[in-house]
C-alpha cells in the first residue's frame, strides 16, 4: 500500500465521519422530520431548508477554492462531472428516487449512517436500496 492510498483512506474516513455527524445533528437520520419537511401542506418543518442551505454555502466555498487550484491536495486530478445534458435517465431516475424518499423519509446517506442504530425496518430498507442500486447499474451499462 503506497502513501497516496493511505492518504486517500484517511481522507475518506474523516470526511465520512464528518458527514455522518452532520446528518445526525441535522436530524436527517430522523425519517419523521424529513417527511415533515416534505409535507408542505401539512405539519411543514422548514428545518431541512437550512440543512441544505448550510451545506450548500460551505460546499460552494469548496468549489470557489477548487477553481484556484490546479489539482487536489492528495490526488492527481479533480474528478468532477461537467455533463450539462438533460437526459431521460436523469429525469426518470430523480423522479423515482423522490417517490421512494417520500414513502420512507430516507435517502441513501442517512439510510447508511443509521445502520449504527439499526432496526429491522432500517435493514430491510437498506438491503432493498442496495438491490435497487445494482439493478440501475446493470441497466445503465446495458
Amino acid at each position, binding site marked *: 500500500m503506497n502513501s497516496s492510498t493511505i492518504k486517500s483512506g484517511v*481522507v*475518506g474516513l474523516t*470526511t*465520512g*465521519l*464528518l*458527514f455522518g*455527524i*452532520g*446528518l*445526525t*445533528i*441535522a436530524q436527517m*437520520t430522523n*425519517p419523521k422530520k424529513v417527511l*415533515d419537511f416534505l*409535507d408542505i401542506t401539512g*405539519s*411543514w*418543518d422548514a*428545518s431541512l431548508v437550512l*440543512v441544505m442551505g*448550510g*451545506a*450548500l454555502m*460551505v*460546499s460552494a*466555498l469548496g468549489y470557489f477554492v477548487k477553481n484556484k487550484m490546479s489539482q487536489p491536495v492528495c*490526488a*492527481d486530478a479533480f*474528478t*468532477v*462531472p461537467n*455533463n450539462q445534458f438533460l437526459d431521460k435517465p436523469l429525469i*426518470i431516475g*430523480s*423522479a*423515482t*428516487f*423522490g*417517490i*421512494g424518499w417520500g*414513502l*420512507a423519509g*430516507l*435517502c*441513501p*446517506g442517512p439510510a447508511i449512517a*443509521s445502520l*449504527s442504530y439499526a432496526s429491522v*425496518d*432500517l435493514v*430491510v*430498507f437498506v438491503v*432493498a436500496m442496495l*438491490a*435497487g*442500486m445494482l439493478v*440501475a*447499474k446493470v441497466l445503465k451499462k446495458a
Partner: protein
Amino acid sequence: MENFTPVSALIGGGLIGFAALLLLLLLGRIAGISGIVSQLFSKQANWFSQNIWRVLFVIGLVLGPIVAVNLFDVLAPQAPTGNSVTLIIAGLLVGFGAVYGSGCTSGHGVCGISRLSKRSIVATCVFMATAMLTVWLTR
C-alpha cells in the same frame, strides 16, 4: 412549525458541506453517497487502491451518528415507519432512482447545486417535487 430546529439544522448542514469541501479539495471527489456506495459494486482493476477511500468513507458515515450521540445531546437515528412491503418498495425506488439519475440529495442536492450544475438543479427540483407529491398523497 413547532418542530423547527434552525440552529442544529444550520450546524449539521454546515458539517455536511464541510465534509464535501474537504473531500473535494483533498481528493478531488464529489461527496455523493449513492455514487460512493454504488461504485463499490464495480468490478475493476486495482479495486482496493481505487476504492479504499470509499470503503472508509462508508465506515466513517456509519460511525458518525455514534460519535454525534455520545459527544453532543442529539437524537440517535430513528427507525423508519411503515410496513415491510412499503419499506422494500421505498428502498428499491430510492436505490434505483439515485443511481439511474446519477445522484441523490447529497450528490445533486448539495455538491451539484453548489457548483451550479444544470443537471443537478433540474434533478433536485424533480425529486423534491415527486417526494412532496408522494407525501401529500400518502399522509
